[in-house]
């Protein structure tokens, strides 16, 4: 599974949960994304390893070149999503009620187009 497909699923799921107002499932959702970000055990990589065997390499590990930080951009992206969702859903739910929707649409579109501005920005900042 590619990161692009995963973003599409992640964005679509978030939009559905917001539409159905399933806050309980949203906790689980945020928990999974936070777990991925903190441990770097990312679902796309795990699924690909299940499909192609243990020899499958995380694309981030194969990146050649010099980076400011030896930290995967995909991990940072997940942590950023978690921070956005926690802040908008639990800290400022009234004033930032629209932000989870924005995150959902942005992820969904990143999945469709394969272009994720946030991931690009993170990589620009020097993450692997």
């Amino acid at each position: 599974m590619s990161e692009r497909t995963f973003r599409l699923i992640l964005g679509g799921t978030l939009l559905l949960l917001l539409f159905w107002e399933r806050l309980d499932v949203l906790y689980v959702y945020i928990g999974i994304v936070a777990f991925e970000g903190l441990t770097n055990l990312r679902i796309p990589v795990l699924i690909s390893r299940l499909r192609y065997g243990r020899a499958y390499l995380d694309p981030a590990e194969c990146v050649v070149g010099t980076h400011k930080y030896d930290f995967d951009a995909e991990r940072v992206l997940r942590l950023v999503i978690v921070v956005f969702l926690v802040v908008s859903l639990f800290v400022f739910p009234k004033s930032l009620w629209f932000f989870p929707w924005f995150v959902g649409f942005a992820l969904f579109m990143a999945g469709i187009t394969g272009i994720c501005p946030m991931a690009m920005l993170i990589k620009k900042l020097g993450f692997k």
Partner: protein
Amino acid sequence: MDEKLRTSDDWLKNWRASIAVKITAAVLYVVVFVGFAVAVLALRDVEENLKNEYTSEADLFSFMIQEDLKGIPVLSPFAVESIVRSHFLSFHFSAVAVTVDQQRTLVGSPPDKAFMLMRTPHVEDPELRTALRVVALELFFPPLHDTVKTRRNRFLITTGLATLFFGFFLTWVIRKFITRPFQTLVNATKAVSEGNLALRLDTDREDEFGYLGGFFNQMLDQIMKELSERKQAEERLSGYARELQESNKELKTFAYIASHDLRTPLVNMKGFAGELRFAIREINAVMNDVLPSLDENNRTRLVTAFLKDVPEALGFIDSSAGRMEELINAISKLSLLGRQELKTELIQVQTIVKSALRDLQLVIEKKGIKVNIGPLPEICADRNSLRMIFGSILDNAVKYLRPGVPGEIEITAEKAPDGTVFSIRDNGRGIPNEEIYKVFEMFRRIGEQDKPGEGVGLACVKTLVRRHGGRIWCESTPGAGTTFHFTIPENAGLPDQALG
């Protein structure tokens, strides 16, 4: 145009590679940002607006009930309830509680945490016509918070879906008008690079792609024209090469025949000349006995003929035959040089030059000629040929020195794009400019003919250099000296280097 070129869906497999998707993504992100900004502004006062909406609905409902009650003959709870029921479905509230003279009736079922508004329409009792009866309406609307959320969600989902459809439409438009012509051009360029020059693009469009297609076709026409011209030229050239090979072959045959078949009559001629000389000697022996019997006049004629004219004629025959033999030998040599197989090997040119100079050692020492040999490289060539080339040029340099001027010969070499250029410079007599073109011609001797030779040496040198795939030329200043230059290519002596 080829259908294959027109429809290519590669971009579906690799969206990131598609210009349409990149542009669409950029536009969509802008639309999403703007959409959310608008949505936040639009939904900022949604709760207040909803409250106002409910209040208006309650006022309108109360007014309608009040108006309807005016027309009924008897004001009873049942009548009021039936009027409420008749209007209930036209409004957004979930339930209405009607109280007439403290008798309360509920229409519909109120939801949990319902938003409630109370209205008391002013009602006259139709029977009494004066007394006012108390009618109270409790209107139960859906919970405010839930409605606000539902409205927001609907709004956002609609916006999102609209954005998505807009994105797909935009992608389709960009793909149709930009990506597809680009893809067509990319495929056409690929096909051309694979050698399909007969391909042409549509030029029906009246935009930049139309012009591009037109110029692309024009470029292909031009390339095809030039290729066709080149092919014709190559065909002509190969025809000339064939003719040249044929004539070269004929020339070789001629040289072979000339050198072998002419030799037989020449030998006969020399042999019979010898016979004649022998016969003259016999006649001379007999003549002494015969001469006294002849008169003075006849004696003189006989003596002149046999002792002067005939030996002189025989002398001419001998020298002409000798000259002819020399010429035949020269032709034979040249023919042999043109035919013999070159055995190329890695050669130290320094060694070859020194060996050639050794043969001329006596003359060089006798004339006190100063010889300078520059750094000479190692090259790949036929040893014997190279030996003959240097030997012949050096022999000429030694032969044709200026009398009274100490001779100087310099041999150098340098790298050039077409191989190694060797130069042999002398300070001899030089060659007049008007005769320099004859230097490499066969049997041509230039200047004062005071040295023996057949005029074949440089012709042979030219043949040998040509057979190595090189070229030879000379520069000369009369009275100052001559420099012969010749090149030997890197891959000298390979079959394609030599012509015949």
